[in-house]
């Protein structure tokens, strides 16, 4: 009887030990936050905004969310859906040129070129080193900034890197003014602020040569051009709270700093300088969303939108409506949120997006 019992036990154990195990590949999957009839979601992305979700550093989970705000719908992970693969590690920014979307994937050292309407991958540009931002010079070429290896020149016909403009250290945002590209240069990536040389470089786009440089405050991370053809730069003061942050106004003709607006303290690191379509109001993040008319005599003391516990991370202004799009990355380990505010700071809508939403890209249809 006892033996029988023991045999039964071992038979049972066999059942346990040989379960029919799934042969399916084990890969990260996601639960759509809005599971209701996904069939109604758009599959072409013509009218709306792309949210570039950086994803966690070294997790390979960057993604793009499409917000169709007229239909009030979001589609998550559109690159993954169209191409059956992940976008990569830390998607930094996206720009559209013609029918093509250029997505800069920082830690994957790539630019993914997609047909922006279908988000099908067309080409992958490699040979980059920690790329940050892309700006189109004309219909022939674009510049790509990087953390450490200068500015790459991208041929828009072949979509290949054809050259590099040597810069020592980290280059960030770029704005074009006539034949000149103004590039924010932060200094050496590995160094603390005290040992970084912050400046705005001026490149003659006809010769791809650096022809001038303008010294600025530490970390001139954001650039914008206003309606009076002045270039504005937001100097964060340094990630390590090195100095008082400032907003500076540059005359691009003379390549001189005309005005400096200082922030009150070093206790915060402002970020994400943006400008509205009229080119008369600047926006930036410094805890809340701040609004600063270009004729202002100083940095505004109070925000237009209070954070109320949110950690605002990305910011852009709708080119037509002037509405403010701001993202909250929460604690970086869950899906973020994008809020749409009116220019006067009234909440219009909010959308759940992907992990660490950092930047935005409007569809060209939306620009008209």
């Amino acid at each position, binding site marked *: 009887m006892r033996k029988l019992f023991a045999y039964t036990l071992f038979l049972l154990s066999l059942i346990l030990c040989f379960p029919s195990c799934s042969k399916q590949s084990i890969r990260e999957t996601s639960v759509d936050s809005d599971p209701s009839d996904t069939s109604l979601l758009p599959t072409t992305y013509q009218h709306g905004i792309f949210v570039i979700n950086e994803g966690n550093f070294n997790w390979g989970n960057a993604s793009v969310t499409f917000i169709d705000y007229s239909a009030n719908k979001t589609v998550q992970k559109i690159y993954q859906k169209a191409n059956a693969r992940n976008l990569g590690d830390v998607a930094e920014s996206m720009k559209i040129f013609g029918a093509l979307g250029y997505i800069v994937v920082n830690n*994957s050292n790539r630019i993914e070129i997609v047909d922006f309407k279908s988000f099908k991958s067309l080409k992958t540009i490699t040979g980059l080193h920690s790329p940050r931002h892309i700006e189109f010079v004309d219909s022939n070429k674009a510049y790509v900034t990087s953390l450490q290896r200068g500015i790459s020149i991208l041929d828009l016909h072949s979509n290949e890197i054809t050259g590099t403009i040597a810069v020592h250290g980290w280059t960030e945002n770029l704005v074009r003014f006539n034949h000149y590209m103004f590039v924010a240069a932060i200094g050496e990536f590995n160094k603390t602020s005290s040992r970084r040389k912050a400046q705005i470089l001026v490149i003659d786009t006809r010769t791809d040569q650096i022809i001038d440089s303008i010294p600025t405050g530490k970390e001139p991370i954001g650039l914008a051009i206003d309606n009076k053809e002045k270039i504005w730069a937001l100097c964060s003061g340094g990630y390590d709270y090195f100095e008082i942050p400032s907003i500076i106004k540059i005359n691009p003709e003379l390549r001189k700093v005309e005005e400096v607006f200082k922030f009150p303290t070093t206790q915060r690191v402002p970020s994400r300088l943006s400008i509205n379509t009229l080119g008369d109001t600047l926006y930036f993040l410094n805890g809340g969303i701040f609004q600063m008319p270009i004729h202002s005599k100083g940095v505004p003391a109070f925000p237009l939108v209070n954070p109320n*516990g949110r*950690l605002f991370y990305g910011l852009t202004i709708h080119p037509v409506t002037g509405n403010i799009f701001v993202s909250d990355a929460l604690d970086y380990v869950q*899906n973020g949120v994008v809020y749409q505010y009116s220019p006067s700071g009234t909440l219009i809508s909010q959308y759940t997006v992907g*992990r660490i939403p950092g930047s935005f890209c409007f569809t060209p249809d939306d620009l008209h």
Partner: protein
Amino acid sequence: MTDPRKYLKSTLFVGLLLSLFLPVAAQNFKDTLRLPVFEVKSGFISDNQGFKKERLDSSILIHHIDADLSKILIQNSTIFIKSYGNGTLSTPSFRGTTAQHTQVEWNGINLNSPMLGQIDLSQIPVSQFDEIEILYGAAGISRTSGAFGGVINMATNPNWDQRLKATFAQTIGSFNTYTTNLNFIAGNPSFQSQTKANYSSSLNDFTYFNDYLGTNVKQQNSSYSSAGITQELFWKIKDKHLISGHIWYNFNNNNLPPTTTEYDQNHIEKQKDEALRAVLEYKFVDRKFNVMIRSCLVDQYMNYQLDSNLNTTHRYYSWINRIRCSFNGIRNLTIKPGLDFTRDWVNSDSYDGVKTRNTTSFYAEISHNFKNTIKTSLIVREDLINEKFLPIIPALGLEYAPFKKINWNLTFNLARNYRYPTLNDQFWILSGNPDLKPETNYTIEIGSNYHRLSANGKFFIEANISGYYMWIYDMITWLPVEGSNLWKPENIDEVLARGLEIGLNLKLEVMGFYLAMTNNYAFCKSTYEKANSEYDKKIGKQLIYVPMHNLNSTLSLERWKFFLSYNFCFVSDRFTGKDNLSIMPAYCLSNILFGKNISMKDFLLSLQIEINNVFNLDYQSIANRPMAGLNYAFTLKFSYSTPRKR
């Protein structure tokens, strides 16, 4: 596409069904290694009643001489190991807590880095010790504060019968993996010397399906090598005094593989580790009074390099001291006072200068037995960190064993515990937060154990079940700082972990066949209970990378000196986001071990083949970190030992 949850349910059902019918657990039926242990030890293996402890079957270690600790725990315990792949960072998670809540010890010496508060289990070769002891939850308070999950201790046991034993083992595995082990044990009934050396190297360039490239590729930049040597001396005087010295040097050189999406990047990313640990210990044993004095020095070096961007070196020294006494014989009362003192020095490129910390612990354990059926123990620990006292750490355990002839008991324990922030939490340049409070933990646990050996000694059964409920307050979490790329640690999270652990071990001898089966199952729901803001969606959600269900099972068979074992592990879904909207699906893995022992006089030749991931499952444990498919390891072991003196 199968719904992973559905499949999970069916597997679970089988598991639960089994646990209803089957008894299981962890003692050795036919244990070739279990040797008489010098009595001194028993006085100090804190036999605190009412707390959960277990020893892994030592035959597991004999058959996995080439393995690292993470592999052993994955296959044989319900501690979840978060692994980035073979030979790469593997960290333990116990009862829904984090790696920092798990203390790993070697002969009672803390191996967790004072900087990070955790240790990489892939850097611990199991050939360097004889036994793995696991203390669950509040049981860890007898060793340290802050181990909310538990303590894993690796111990060496001298064998006083041994005259001479020499072992050579060579393992050749898939992906150009080679491991060599040399052990030499010599001595007499009062003096023992153990020397153990290991060397391991692997290209680890397994082929996997890369989703980004849409094709099979070989893993890149994943090679590693490691070497270690341990020298231990034991000197026993008149069965009353034991003096021992241990030195362990270990070296690891790892290339760190990229995520699957970064396959084509040719990054140079590597890590070098060196550790030297030296221990001197004295034990005095008498019938009514025991004492142990131990002093240990640790020197740990780590260098990390990423392309030309980063090259950082961290080095720390720890001086770890412990005194424990034990007075018994005051009726049914045992009193064990103790004192620990640890000093850490850290010199890190990521700190602003050398940082030091002194930790002093005052410890007392009082055990009392009532009528031999109720055993109680009360542990009180008071930690002094530099000049600051932590609140008192109390733990109370009860064990009720009502029957004389039936080995069945009920256990209960209750504790409060604290974990002090790590040195990284406090001093990481620009990020460290010197104002952090210690994390607070309250835990309650009930359990039951049963074991029985049949009268003819041919059938053994052991079953245990325990349930726990614990809160962690002020859990330290690193959060991003707005506008900066800095992260800062804050006492932000509250976590509620509750779970159930079931173990069932069976051993059976029939017609000359030895059959053994061990099963472990753990259910753990560990959730965030506090949001950072009203927009935070993590309340009530499972902690990331903590599986709710974890099951492993091993079936072994021995006859005519052949041995065969089948190991099965199931790990349920793990969430990769705190909102639980992204998931790594559940998987099961199967491993087979087969071999034969051939003995000739004083020589023993052992041949074995190990087949890992038998069904060639294409899986990832961590998102975008590929794991090896079907792979093999062949081991030849040759040993000589002089016969035991009768």
